[in-house]
């Protein structure tokens, strides 16, 4: 049933496949982000309590969800690499880490810029904020470990262990607003059943969320391809590809 997946375990096939994927993903990213951001900034109604500061929501929530989603993807990749010794999984984990770190930083910064006018403070050591900050440090640790070893297999193993240990942080972030009495508000979008949001506010959110997810996909693909080349630099197909690329660069 899953046999069609097998060729994609080949680095060369994956390299060319993601290369073909990037232009399509980029076009969709531009489309969704352009519609989503303009809608969020100019056309979505202002919140009845928070006024126009509520528009930060359209950055903050997608960034925060993606920071956790990308970590989860990285953990799945780390687990796959550890259990089945599947080398491409390490390359994808290394590609995911910097993207996740940037989305975590955006979630923290936009959160601070939203917290200042709403709560009166940029930062507070509340459970949700603190656990999200720990997520940023986990990402930084994983990136550092990937770069700390010359041997990429060893680096992948070390970073993978940290990634899997850090998974415990994901449910803590997710349920922090329910387990503890936090200043951070509860979830509005991902409630079971009906989201407690008006439909005119929800649509631009969906566009923004998809747009940012696609953008993350594009950047992960670009970084994944660099990782593949780096890890397979002595293979004949990489040698052929590199010399062909160099010729086109020189002829320009």
């Amino acid at each position, binding site marked *: 049933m899953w046999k069609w997946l097998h060729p994609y375990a080949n680095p060369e096939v994956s390299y060319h496949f993601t290369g073909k994927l990037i232009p399509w993903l980029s076009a969709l990213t531009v489309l969704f982000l352009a519609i989503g*951001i303009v809608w969020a*900034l*100019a*056309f*979505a*109604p*202002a919140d009845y309590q928070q*006024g*126009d*500061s509520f*528009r*930060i929501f359209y*950055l*903050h929530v997608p*960034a925060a969800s993606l920071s956790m989603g990308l970590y989860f993807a990285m953990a799945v990749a780390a687990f796959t690499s550890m259990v089945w010794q599947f080398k491409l999984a390490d390359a994808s984990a290394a590609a995911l880490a*910097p*993207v996740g770190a*940037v989305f975590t*930083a*955006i979630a923290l*910064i*936009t959160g601070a*810029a*939203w917290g*200042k*006018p709403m709560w009166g403070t940029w930062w507070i050591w509340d459970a949700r904020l603190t656990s999200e900050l720990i997520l940023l440090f986990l990402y930084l640790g994983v990136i550092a470990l990937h770069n700390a070893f010359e041997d990429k297999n060893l680096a992948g193993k070390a970073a993978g262990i940290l990634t899997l240990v850090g998974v415990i942080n994901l449910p803590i972030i997710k349920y922090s607003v329910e387990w503890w009495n936090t200043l951070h508000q509860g979830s509005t979008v991902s409630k079971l059943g009906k989201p407690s949001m008006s439909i005119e506010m929800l649509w631009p959110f969906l566009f923004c969320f998809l747009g940012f997810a696609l*953008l993350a996909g*594009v*950047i992960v693909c*670009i*970084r994944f*391809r*660099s990782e593949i*080349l*780096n890890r397979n*630099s002595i293979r004949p197909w*990489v*040698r052929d590809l*590199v*010399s062909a*690329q*160099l010729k086109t660069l020189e002829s320009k």
Partner: protein
Amino acid sequence: MQFDSFQAFLNMGGYGFYVWLSFGVSTVLLLTLLFSSLKNHKQVIKNIALRQQREDKLRQVRKNRQNAQTTIENEVSK
């Protein structure tokens, strides 16, 4: 459209600073990540090519030396 004028749009109901700070920082961070990733990809290709050139050159030198050696040996044995 929720705003009457461009001024009102920039002002964001008094929250302009916070809203534009958020959107500005996010844009800068994401664009930096995107362009550094693209630049990194080119750099990786260049580094592999340089290493390849160096290896090819070494191989060539080794081959030349070996050829010279055999010519000398042939000359001596004559």
